[in-house]
């Protein structure tokens, strides 16, 4: 079973009245929205909005690296998704294209962007990758990864946010997604991939064959 998935990087604008409020004042966090849709009927078969619990170590390390921007070209040692410590640059050497926190993956790309998996082990701060990522593909046990899309930043009276979205279509037999993460790109002389968020505390979500799971990660702050 194969479902067409988009390649276009859409720009969506979230209206203030559509912003979910799950965080407490002072928190910078992520709201995780999961929607399962049957593309044949357009019917939503499951929808959950829950607070993401789990920025992991690499997010704070990459945020630190971005904020310090040390001109001396020193580095921060950060573990990538293949469990190798990388000396991520704090500043761009001349002539180098440096990515930092990028996650604008195209369709079928599983090195960055939102990634899904099947392991339900609770997250800990040192997790550096999903424990059982689901591969992109059309076979059983795989899912078809769409391109990442992004909602433009928005705010209401108390909450600011930006939204990251990816669709995953289940193949024959369906699949249960138990973990979700965000992989981003950093640079140590070459592009490297780092997991910044991992969630596995949402009780799993069943995606029947042919149906699509839409994952929205909404990075938010509440004053």
């Amino acid at each position, binding site marked *: 079973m194969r479902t067409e998935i988009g390649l276009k990087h859409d720009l969506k604008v979230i209206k203030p009245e559509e912003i979910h409020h799950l965080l407490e004042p002072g928190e910078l966090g992520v709201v995780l929205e999961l929607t399962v849709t049957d593309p044949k009927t357009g019917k939503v078969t499951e929808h959950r909005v829950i607070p993401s619990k*789990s*920025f*992991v170590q690499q*997010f704070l390390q990459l945020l630190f690296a971005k904020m310090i921007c040390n001109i001396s070209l020193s580095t921060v040692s950060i573990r990538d998704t293949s469990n190798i410590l990388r000396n991520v640059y704090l500043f761009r050497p001349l002539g180098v294209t*440096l990515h930092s926190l990028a996650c604008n993956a195209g369709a079928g790309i599983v090195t960055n962007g939102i990634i899904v998996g099947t392991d339900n082990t609770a997250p800990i701060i040192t997790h550096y990758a999903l424990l059982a990522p689901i591969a992109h593909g059309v076979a059983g046990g795989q899912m078809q990864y769409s391109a990442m899309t992004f909602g*433009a930043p928005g705010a209401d009276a*108390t909450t600011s946010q930006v939204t990251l979205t990816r669709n995953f279509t289940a193949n024959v037999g369906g699949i249960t997604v138990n973990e979700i993460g965000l992989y981003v790109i950093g640079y140590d002389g070459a592009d490297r991939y780092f997991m910044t968020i991992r969630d596995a505390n949402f009780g799993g979500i069943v995606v029947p064959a042919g149906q699509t799971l839409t994952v929205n990660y909404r990075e938010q702050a509440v004053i």
Partner: protein
Amino acid sequence: MIRMKLILARFDKDGQLIERREQESKSWLKHLFDILYILHNESVSLANVNDIGGNPREIVYTPTPINALQVGAPPGNVNFPCMIGSACNKGEQIGQDFGIVVGTGNLAVTPIQDALQTKIAHGEGAGQLLYGGCELYGLTFANPNGQFTIRRYFTNVAGGAIAVVEAGIYASALTSALLYSFCIARDVFAAVTVNNGEILRVTYVPQITV
């Protein structure tokens, strides 16, 4: 989840601690997400992001200068280039316009604010403070927690007392032409009166907990 502590400490001219307050910072602002959006999604620009002067800018990802979200800053009157070496072509930023900043305005915080209400300028004149460098350090983890520290010293040699009631963080981002500063956090608090000869230390500590 990330929370952030704001620590205000006042010292006399000999470096003796006079006053220390610690509170929760409540105020990451929308411009943080404007910059994160550009970093996450490198293929787009974002228009109408007001800089600290209230001027709308179209911020972009660019693989050349990469100062986006920079908070580490030199002292108040020292320029920082947009990139290393002679190829700098995106201008410079003066130290007092990025990193931790302080002010005298007590306007309540809302998510869309472009600057401190009344920023205190760097200097030795009346109502001014000398801005030290803004440093980042102390990146540490102990499961389930992690944190780092952003810190800046402000010295009063202006000849009179200054009541500081707001603090914030300015971070840089680029348009296709130049480097600008954007306010990503702002807090308002009961006044800390910094007398002539005293030093104010403002510390932000972002903390993550899984």
